[in-house]
């Protein structure tokens, strides 16, 4: 069992409240998984300022306050490193490029977990209680147009930052999962043979890399998820997001729960309705459960 939440804000007046609303949703889902948690936030000015690209990473131990200087020295440009609990978010001018920043982070801390990267997303992960982690991340103060979160009860791999969702393996992409894939080892082997490198033995990471592989090949998200449904065995509710959209899909027998709520101001998804009760206007929202193997996608 795990908990997933997602919030896509249509009304810009709500953007300053993204973190507050997402924190409430995440903390309500902590009963579904309290060993670790993670969030992806799109558009926060602390982590993803306009004109910058960022890399979110979890260093193996608390890194020194020299992190900023080390990266700046390596890249020969100004780098800002923002601590967010166990995760650090480094950002540089977009002209430097996210690949250069990723390379610099990996060179400086070879053991670091790359949590996410892109122009708009910050991905924050940690081991611990979701409520404590949300505070450590600084999540309640986050702003932006979209966020997803995950509370984990580990079943398929170790309780480590590498086992935390979201899995953000493509630029500005991320994926969270409630459930378990049963044939992930076979698919991981195929993806490794095609050149993909994995950070963990986690089943969900295989799903994320599968989707990223298909998106990189030019599929749209709906086609990529249809192929995932045909390739992966197991139980899942998946929430897949990128800079402009998010999508939900459930397995063929709808084993894992999901509730969608939609108003003119926002679209929200959660494992359970109770995660949604704090959203403004929930009383008037259109509520439904996604049908099995039907892909629901929203774009801005």
């Amino acid at each position, binding site marked *: 069992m795990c908990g997933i939440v997602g919030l896509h804000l249509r009304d810009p007046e709500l953007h300053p409240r993204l973190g507050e609303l997402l924190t409430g949703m995440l903390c309500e889902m902590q009963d579904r998984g309290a060993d670790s948690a993670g969030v992806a936030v799109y558009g926060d000015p602390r982590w993803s300022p306009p004109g910058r690209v960022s890399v979110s990473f979890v260093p193996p131990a608390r890194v020194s306050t020299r992190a900023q200087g080390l990266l700046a020295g390596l890249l020969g440009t100004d780098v800002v490193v923002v601590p967010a609990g166990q995760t650090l978010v480094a950002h540089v001018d977009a002209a430097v490029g996210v690949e250069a920043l990723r390379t610099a982070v990996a060179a400086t801390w070879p053991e670091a977990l790359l949590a996410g990267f892109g122009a708009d997303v910050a991905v924050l992960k940690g081991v611990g209680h979701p409520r404590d982690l949300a505070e450590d991340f600084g999540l309640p103060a986050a702003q932006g147009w979209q966020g997803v979160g995950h509370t984990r009860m580990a079943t398929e791999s170790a309780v480590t930052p590498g086992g935390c969702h979201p899995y953000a393996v493509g630029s500005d992409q991320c994926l969270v999962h409630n459930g378990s894939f049963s044939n992930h080892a076979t698919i991981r082997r195929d993806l490794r043979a095609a050149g993909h490198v994995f950070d963990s033995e986690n089943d969900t990471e295989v799903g994320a890399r599968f989707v990223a592989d298909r998106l990189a090949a030019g599929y749209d998200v709906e086609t990529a998820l249809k192929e995932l449904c045909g390739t992966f065995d197991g139980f899942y509710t998946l929430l897949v997001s990128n800079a402009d959209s998010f999508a939900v899909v459930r397995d063929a027998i709808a084993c894992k729960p999901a509730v969608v709520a939609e108003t003119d101001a926002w679209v929200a998804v959660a494992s359970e309705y109770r995660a949604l009760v704090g959203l403004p206007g929930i009383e008037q929202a259109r509520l439904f459960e996604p*049908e099995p193997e039907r892909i629901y996608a929203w774009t801005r």
Partner: protein
Amino acid sequence: MDALTATRELDLSTVPLRSVNALLHGRPVDGHPPLGPEESVVLTRPRGAHAVAVGLEEPRQVRVEGHVGYYAAGMNQRADVVIEGNAGVGVAENMMSGSVTVRGNASQSAGATAHGGLLVVEGDAAARCGISMKGVDIVVGGSVGHMSAFMAQAGRLVVRGDAGDALGDSIYEARLYVRGSVASLGADCVAKQMGPAHLEELAGLLKAAGFEDDDPATYTRYGSARSLYHFHTDNAY
């Protein structure tokens, strides 16, 4: 207030769920006088909580004003519970008697394993509605999802809308009545003739659920072909 018409209102956002359920079970709760034998109960602000009004054993009217989470009114005996909203997974699971009415939609496994009583879902019910039902009557105002009445042993399931895939898979002796389309029938589930007794039975169920204007003749009955009851070598792998 007249003791016969007294109503106790409890706000689930301030009174802990365990206290509310303890009161409904007739157990003492600090700060709350016990419920009178005829006292009805209104539960406000459930906010999707799980296990609301579970395990009731005495006759009592209970109304829940809002959406509830998992297993609402589970194991009900003799009480009449009305949910003025949607219900999560397993509403009225293992009900023995009494009634549970959901004014909105119900999530999967509504009425699972229930032995008796009447479950009415005025909206849609999701997958596995009436899974392993053992004598309950279920009337769904809208449609039901896939694998409904899976391994249903006894009782009646009425669907005013459509049924999803694999209706009645591995069904025993429950009787299913569907007005709309059935996406597919599960193993050993077949359409059957509607006799006068079936029309009368269905009319009674529709009336009990508040849908007496439906014409029972527009429904189709489904039940067990009884071909899985005994070992047959063609079924072996």
